[in-house]
């Protein structure tokens, strides 16, 4: 291994990079777009559910119920349709997700201490939102019942009664249940895969397509020197993207890392090496920029997005898919980032994931060098 040769290859690669408009676009515009897109659009939080209430009862009690519903952060009462048919129309047109019908005589039944049903309809097209809506409505109605129960008991002359079981719930690590807090680490993982693997998947294939691979073969360049020289410029660009992503996560979304910045950089470094290794390996094997590019999307970007615990929770996956997800590098990186961002964990607690990433980096680096040696380097 010779530092001057590695430097010569890295410098050449840097020239290719700054002169290729498409690479630069991929390297800087795509990450920015992803952060904005995922950060703003892909909010998984359910609040301000558009709701409609048909009030056939028209009593102070029914109006109080509607006012309390509207006052909750989870529901916005956006319409007061006059009939059940009008409510159906609103649900059909996707104007509201929740519809409640208060039947005539509802409050009278309540006052007579008789069961007094409400009709609740939820749009189930999006199961995630529907599930959350159902949970919020159930909790809301339970509160209403509790108030009524206390009223009833008070009227019976039993004062200061307390509910028998009271759960005091505290959410740890992400107190406000903000999905952004785990989306930002996920975006960083996806960006590294895109920039790291997608960009590098082109760089050796390009040498084959332009015939310069034969030049490289004829020169005293060793496989490891070629690999490192190719990787260095892309490593720096990807690392720059990580810093931009951390900064944007902090400035735009207020997602602040709780744990050590340097631990984050260490994890990113190893993970970037894995991504670059995958991209370069695809590039040597396919020897075609087009095929390499598509393969890189297939084996890096999509698994990082879908199988890494980022968008879909791994514990809900069927067993074979869970096994596959254990082979996805992003799984371990996101595990580390969640530990650092949300839980303030230390290296002592995160080392298994670090170890897995390091082993993957070594394995992929070794495969690269073997592939390049077979190609005559």
């Amino acid at each position, binding site marked *: 291994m010779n530092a001057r040769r590695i430097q010569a290859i890295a410098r050449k690669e840097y020239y290719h990079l700054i*002169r290729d408009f498409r690479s630069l676009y991929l390297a800087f515009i795509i990450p920015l777009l992803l952060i904005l897109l995922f950060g703003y659009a892909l909010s998984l939080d359910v609040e301000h559910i558009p709701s409609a209430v048909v009030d056939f009862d028209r009593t102070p009690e029914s109006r109080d119920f509607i006012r309390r519903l509207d006052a909750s952060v989870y529901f916005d009462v956006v319409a007061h349709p006059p009939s059940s048919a009008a409510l159906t129309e609103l649900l059909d047109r996707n104007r509201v997700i929740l519809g409640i019908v208060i039947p005539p005589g509802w409050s009278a039944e309540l006052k007579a201490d008789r069961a007094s049903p409400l009709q609740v309809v939820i749009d189930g097209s999006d199961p995630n939102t529907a599930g959350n809506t159902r949970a919020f409505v159930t909790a809301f109605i339970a509160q209403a019942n509790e108030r009524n129960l206390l009223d009833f008991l008070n009227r019976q002359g039993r004062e200061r009664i307390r509910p028998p079981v009271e759960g005091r719930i505290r959410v740890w690590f992400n107190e406000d249940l903000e999905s952004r807090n785990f989306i930002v680490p996920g975006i960083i993982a996806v960006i590294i895969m895109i920039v790291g693997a997608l960009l590098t998947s082109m760089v050796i294939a390009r040498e084959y397509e332009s015939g*310069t691979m034969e030049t490289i073969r*004829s020169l005293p360049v060793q496989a490891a020197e070629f690999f490192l020289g190719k990787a260095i410029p892309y490593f720096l660009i990807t690392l720059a993207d990580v810093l931009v992503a951390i900064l944007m996560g902090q400035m735009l979304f207020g997602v602040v890392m709780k744990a050590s910045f340097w631990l984050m950089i260490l994890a990113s470094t190893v993970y970037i090496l894995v991504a670059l290794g995958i991209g370069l390996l695809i590039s040597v094997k396919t020897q075609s920029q087009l095929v390499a590019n598509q393969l890189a999307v297939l084996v890096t970007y999509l698994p990082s997005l879908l199988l890494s615990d980022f968008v879909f929770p791994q514990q809900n996956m069927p067993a074979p898919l869970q096994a596959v997800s254990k082979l996805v590098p992003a799984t371990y990186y996101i595990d580390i980032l969640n530990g650092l961002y949300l839980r303030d964990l230390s290296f002592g607690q995160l080392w298994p994931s670090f170890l897995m990433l390091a082993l993957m980096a070594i394995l992929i680096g070794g495969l690269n060098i073997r592939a390049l040696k077979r190609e005559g380097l």
Partner: protein
Amino acid sequence: MAADAVAVTDLVKRFGRFTAVDRITFSVRTGEIFGFLGPNGAGKSTTIRMLCGIITPTSGAGHVAGFDLFTGAERIKQAIGYMSQKFSLYPDLTPFENIRFYLGIYNVPPAEWPERIEWVFAVTRLTAVRDRPTRELPPGWRQRLALGCALLHRPRLLFLDEPTSGVDPITRRHFWEFIRQLTVQGVTVFVTTHYMDEARHCDRVIMINAGRIVAGGPPAEIVAAVLPGQPEADLGDAFVALMRREAP
């Protein structure tokens, strides 16, 4: 024998069941221009790629610039210069950047870089286009740059694979003059071509067809031996005559 720049014995290269080079034996003396002639597909490129350490021979023995073909590929690459007709520089890099790339790859100490860069621009006459992208240069100029790059580390042995194909006659004459100057300085030049008329620039040639050597020696001697009593015949005529003789 060891003083020869190149010496190979029974060299064979097979790709699967196809034998591209079939037991060739020859040597190249230090300081000569050695021509390697034959039609396209005869095994010229395969041979030169073996000699340059790019591919490993299937069997046989040989050494190039003092290093073994089977174990010294890396050192052969460092010792020789190699330029191919397909030999591509990086088109998006300028001549200056291409040159700097080669200086780094050949591990030339940076203290010597300014002097080498000045020398290569002087011999290639490319100073005016130093900072233009290489892709914008005419093919003949790119060829000069490629040759200059192959000489940056001052190799004692130069391999040229079809160096003049697609180049105009004036450039070709300049090219051969330049090659002659190099040999005066003691550089050995191994050149392949399918232009038979270019063989007159060579001290000795071998002719190859279908992976086998069909004739070898100084060009005039080959013509005299194959076509005795025909003083106006050239190497091309001799080659055609040899092909006829080989055909059953």
